[in-house]
Each structure stands twice: as structure tokens, then as C-alpha cells.
């Protein structure tokens, strides 16, 4: 029982990440009708916002390393520690949450630049062309990051107060066996609140209303004389921020490297298809569902019956859903069917 509860927690946590990525992807697809293969790269860029801020905060003086005697070696002492002592160290440990402040403008800018500079010219081109040009862009972005940060993962620490584990079981009176890392809980609540904000934004603002109307029927809204295109480029920026934040907050869980976006790319498409192309609630639902099912498929009890099931569960679900209910869980019929 405890094992199952823990796996549900795992699934919720993983699902939070999947849902956030799929949410951004669906926003872009639903509004602009663009299949964005560079979406994983946005996740990766978000993660590297955290890495960059950490690097900036640990900008260091080189102090001669006396422990190395055979050659001139230096060790690095961050200025912040040099100037502020303990406070500096604490400040550095907060670099991941702090980088949210950096990531929002940066990702917004990247999103807008991407839409204005490239994606815009592909609205009328076939989906295959969109896939290909964004795929090319993803390769380029990832190679640039690799050239600047190397291929190795960059571990990110979490602030003292969020490190360690929480006794979740005790909170709900379920015994002491259900402990869970605090940061993962933070991630889950973070993803829930981002999802909530995006939905609230679309539901309760005029801007959001127009966007939703545009998602449902682009031509009609344009006939009303509303400049959809301009709003849609902002939506692209918004989607970039959402995926960027998803990546950024994930860095303490998964030390990011240049390839982290590609690792999530296929998966995020599967999530979107399972949820239904263009359906925001579908993307969220599918994200959590796939996260939980993936966790269950990895349990020893399941694997002993179906060896290797954890390797293919995601694809298996995608296949079954596509064959049985091609529009996805909550999708509209006929989206991109031809």
C-alpha cells in the first residue's frame, strides 16, 4: 500500500513536469497551429537559465591552489562568498528559485524572438516543414549550449529549507513509511500553480478570452477585426516561459545537460497526442496520467509479470489511445486528421 502511494507521488511529480511541457506545446499548437519540435529546447534553455545564474553568482576569483604542487593550479572562490561570507553562501544556494526572476524575461524574449524571427514565416507551410525547421532550430540551440556549457551535466543545489525529505505519511496519519523529498513536493505544487495561473489567465482576462476564441475558430475571430497574430506571438512567449520554468525548477532533480530537451521532446509529443491535440486540459490530464502509469509500470511486481514494460509503457499507451480514440482523451475530433 505504501509502495503504491509512493508511486502515485512519483507519478504526480513526473506528471507535473510532463504536464507543464505539454501545456506549452499545446498552447503553441492550439493557437498557432505550429508543430514545434524546438519545444524541448525551450525546456533546456529554461534549465540553463538556472545554470547561468548559478554561474554568475559563483563568479570567482582564482586563488592559487596550494595543495597542487606539480603545476600552477587555481581554485575558485566566488566573489559573493568573499564579500558576504555565510550570507553569500546562502544566497548562492538560492540560485535556482532566484533564477525564476531571470528566466521569465529571458524566456519571454526568446519565445517572442523565435516566433517573430522564424516560426511566423511557417504558418502557411505544411506541418512537415514546421517540424523540420523547428527540429533544425533545436539542434542549433542545443549545440550552442553545448559549446558554451560543455556536455557534462550541471548539478544544481536547492536551498537548505527545501533539501531533505518530508514525512508525508505522518501528515495524513499513514505511518512513517512515506517520506518524500521536499523539493519534489515543491515541484509538484509549483507545476500546479503554474497550470492554475495559465488557466486563470486564459479564463478571466480579455486577452485570454480572445486567445481561447482564436484557438476554437481562428478565421471567425479574425473576421471580427481582432489582430490575432499579435496576440498569438505573445502566447508563444508565454508558452516559452511555461516550459522554461518547468525546466528551471527541474534542475535540482535532474542535473541539466545540453541534451535534456531532446530527452523530453518525444515524450512531450506523446503526452499532447494522448491528451488530444489542442486541448489544454487534455495535456494536463495526460501528463499526470502518463506520469502515474509510468511509475506503476516500473514496480517490481509489474515488471516480473511483463518484463521490460517500463521501457515501452509510454509508447504503448500512445499507440492504444491513437488507435482506439484518435482525438485523444479530451481532444476535439478531426484536428490535424488530414
Amino acid at each position, binding site marked *: 500500500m505504501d*509502495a503504491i502511494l509512493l508511486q502515485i507521488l512519483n507519478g504526480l511529480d513526473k506528471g507535473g513536469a510532463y504536464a507543464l511541457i505539454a501545456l506549452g506545446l499545446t498552447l503553441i499548437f492550439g493557437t498557432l497551429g505550429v508543430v514545434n519540435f524546438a519545444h524541448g529546447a525551450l525546456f533546456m534553455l529554461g534549465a540553463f537559465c538556472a545554470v547561468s545564474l548559478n554561474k554568475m553568482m559563483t563568479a570567482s576569483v582564482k586563488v592559487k591552489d596550494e595543495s597542487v604542487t606539480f603545476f*600552477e*593550479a587555481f581554485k575558485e572562490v566566488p566573489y559573493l562568498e568573499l564579500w558576504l561570507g555565510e550570507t553569500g553562501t546562502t544566497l548562492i544556494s538560492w540560485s535556482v528559485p532566484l533564477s525564476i526572476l531571470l528566466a521569465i524575461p529571458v524566456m519571454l524574449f526568446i519565445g517572442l524572438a523565435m516566433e517573430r524571427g522564424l516560426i511566423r514565416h511557417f504558418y502557411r507551410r505544411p506541418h512537415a516543414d514546421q517540424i523540420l525547421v523547428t527540429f533544425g532550430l533545436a539542434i542549433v540551440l542545443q549545440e550552442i549550449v553545448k559549446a558554451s556549457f560543455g556536455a*557534462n551535466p550541471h*548539478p544544481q543545489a536547492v536551498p537548505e529549507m527545501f533539501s531533505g*525529505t518530508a514525512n508525508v505519511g505522518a501528515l495524513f496519519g499513514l505511518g512513517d*513509511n512515506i517520506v*518524500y523529498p521536499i523539493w519534489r513536493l515543491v515541484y509538484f505544487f509549483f507545476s500546479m500553480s503554474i497550470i492554475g495561473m495559465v488557466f486563470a489567465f486564459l479564463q478571466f482576462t480579455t486577452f485570454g478570452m480572445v486567445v481561447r476564441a482564436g484557438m476554437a475558430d481562428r478565421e471567425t475571430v479574425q473576421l471580427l477585426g481582432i489582430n490575432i497574430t499579435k496576440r498569438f506571438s505573445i502566447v508563444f512567449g508565454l508558452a516559452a516561459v511555461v516550459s522554461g520554468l518547468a525546466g528551471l525548477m527541474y534542475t535540482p532533480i535532474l542535473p541539466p545537460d545540453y541534451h535534456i530537451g531532446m530527452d523530453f521532446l518525444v515524450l512531450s509529443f506523446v503526452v499532447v497526442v494522448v491528451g488530444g491535440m489542442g486541448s489544454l486540459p487534455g495535456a494536463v490530464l495526460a501528463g499526470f496520467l502518463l506520469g502515474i502509469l509510468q511509475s506503476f509500470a*516500473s514496480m*517490481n511486481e509489474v515488471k516480473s509479470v511483463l518484463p521490460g514494460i517500463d521501457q515501452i509503457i509510454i509508447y504503448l499507451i500512445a499507440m492504444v489511445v491513437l488507435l482506439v480514440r484518435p482525438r485523444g482523451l479530451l481532444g476535439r475530433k478531426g484536428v490535424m486528421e488530414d
Partner: protein
Amino acid sequence: MTKKTSDVSRRSFVKGSAAATAAGIAAPSIFVPHATAAGAFRNDPGSSKTVTLGFNVPQSGPYADEGADELRAFRLAVKHLNGEGDGGMMQTMQPMNLKGNGILGKKVEYVTGDTQTKSDAARASAKRMIEKDGVIMFSGGSSSGVAIAVQSLAQEMGTVFMAGLTHSNDTTGKDRRRYGFRHFFNAHMSGAALAPVLEAEYGRDRQVYHLTADYTWGWSQEQSITEATAGSGWQTVNAVKTPVGAGDFSQYITPILNSGADVLVLNHYGKDMVNSLTQAIQFGLRDKQVNGKDFQIVVPLFSRLMAQGAGENIKGILGSTAWNWKLQDEGSKAFVKAFGQEYGFPPSQAAHTCYVQTLLYADACERAGTFNPEQVIRALEDHTFDGMGNGETLYRGEDHQCFKDVLVVRGNQNPSSQFDLLEVQDVVPRAKVEYSADLYPGELGPYKV
């Protein structure tokens, strides 16, 4: 189909057809026929003033940083062979036949290639080196799958391959090849070296949970550790296979919490190890007490680049490694000094093994007095040397595996610099990690191809 009755006739058929080509099609001059005359061999530098080596390392993909370090070591080795710089380990190598004038008086040049850590790409790159660039030997690598794939190519093409980083027992076990040589240690040695240290540190009769990367290297690592620690009364509670590149391992880690295990062995490498270790520690495994003992995590194969990726989480974790730059023997010091002066930071174990392999090959050529791979291979087989950082070392003839001291290391609690991530816990002498060549049976294949 045509059935050949003897090998001789088949060979002569091939020769005949080669002659036919020469007559019929104007074969471009770069396709100099090989292996036709007795004593001739592929890419014989002949009277050329230079000789070319190939360095085939991952330049893209997850192990690109490791590949970059290997490449630095190769460049350094070439420099030293050509008599530039301070000579590095050439000052300490025993026996030492290199003269600092290249190999056999020919200046050493090199070509590079990208394996992408994929067998196909690695073989394509190696073939380019052999067929186009005319290399006499090639080296490098960062995964066992690639090493094994490239090694069998070496055998087919008759070009010596000096493996870089490859840790699987298979490389010099069931997939050993006459033309492939491994200086690096393997999973069996990791187990043999770790077992006594683990018993001393963590006691007897522990309950072990394995998380194992679901492919050949992971399985052989798990098996080696299980066998080596069985003598200490360590029992396997469960051994779970995880998909390669799983990213988030949480669903594999949570079942450990209440499994009754008190030791977790992570049979992962590279990114998988970075992720699984980071996450295992997040789940508070190291703060747990199970069966009245402190919960422990063991990572049988460590590398410095992995340690960098895992950051804080590596502190205090035990594992094994082939070599570390803080070793105080003369050979290691000479190498670290030369490398550090050249690049400003100390070398990794991957760099070490690549550097040593290049020097060993060159030395074998000098001893054989020829580049003919047949003689060079014989010169390397059962060769004993010293002064290369791991004590007296034997290149065993039966399986082309080097036997040398193995290091047990621990993640440094108080690193003095960003390179000071691992501290040497124990240098396990060669005698303790040696095993019979029949333990992992395989066929080397012929000298002449």
C-alpha cells in the same frame, strides 16, 4: 552457391580478382593493395617520414567532455613521442625504448574522429581513419559497446586498436580480439577491489539492493559485485533493471525505501549514474537507518567527470577507479605535471589510459623494430612494464587485459578545488584483482588477417 574446398583456393581467388581489378579498372592510386606480398601489412608507412595514429573519441553525445579529455591526452602523447615538451611518463616508463624521435624514427601525426558513442558511427569513423587516412593504430572510446564493436573491426581490418575507457568484462572476455588491447580495468576487478574495502567499511552481512542499467555492461557489473561481496555475507534483496537514459529514477528508488535493504549499489554509468545518485540522495537514503545500520550507497565505477556531474551528492560515496591524479608515484606525477602545464588542470582517468595506451603501442613498435601488427601484437602480449601510474603492470597475452593496481576512492568531503573530488581510499594491489583468463572465455583470433 559455390563451395570452396580449401582456404588456399579462396585466398588465391581473391588475389586473382585483385589483380583483375588492377588490370580492368583504373584503381585510384590511394587504393594501394595490401596484404598481397608476404610480410606486407595494411597501411605500412614504408619509407614515409611520418606515421599516422587515429584517435577515435566521442566528440558529440553524452560523453563528449570525456572524449575531449581523451583527445587532450592523445595530443600530449604525440607531443612527447615526437620529443617535444618534457616527455611526461617517458621519463618514468620501465622498460623504456622510446627515443623522443617519433616511432621508429618516423614523426608521429594523428587524425581525429567522432564516435558519437554509437557503434555504427564509431566503426565508420575508424574505417575512415584506416581506409582514407592510413592509420597504423587507432585508439579511444568511452563505452564498452563501442569498444567491442570497434575492436572486432580492428580484427577484420588488421589494424591494432588500443582501447580507451571500456569497463565491461566482455571487452577482454567473450569479445576479446587479437588486434584489441585494453589497459583500463574492468567490472570484475572493480568487484574484487571493492569487496574487501566494503566489508571493512560497512561490515559483513548486509542486504543489498541493485539498480542496474539494463544492458550488457550493467549486467556484468552487477554480477561481478554480487559475486565479489558474497564472501562477506552480502545478500541481494533485489536487483532491478532500469532503462538506459531513464532520466527520473524516482519510481525505481521509492521501492528501496521499505525493501529492507541497507546498501544500494548503482550499476550505472555517465548520465544515468549522475541522475540516479542525485535522486537517491534526495530521497534521503543516506540518512536512513535500516536493520540497525546506516544505509550506504556504492557506485562501483567512478570517474571524475561523473563526480563533477553529481556535485555535492558524491561526497563520502565509495567506488573504484583506474587511476587518480593525486597518486604520488613518479609516473603519475610526471604525467599530471605535463598535462597540467599544457592545459591548466589535471587529467582524468580516461585521459590517463589513453595516454598510456599510446605510449605502450609506440614502445612495442620500437621493441618489435617494425610497424607490422603481427610483431607489434606479440611485443605487447605478456609485456610487463612499470612507471605508468599503476605499479608493475602485465599485458596478459591470453586476453589482452592489463593487470595492475586498482584504486578504491571516496567522494571527497572537503574538496580543496573543483578537481579534488575523489580521494584515494585504498590502492588495491594487482594480485588481489587478478583472475584466470578462462573465467570469461573467448577467442582472440589469428595474428594474421
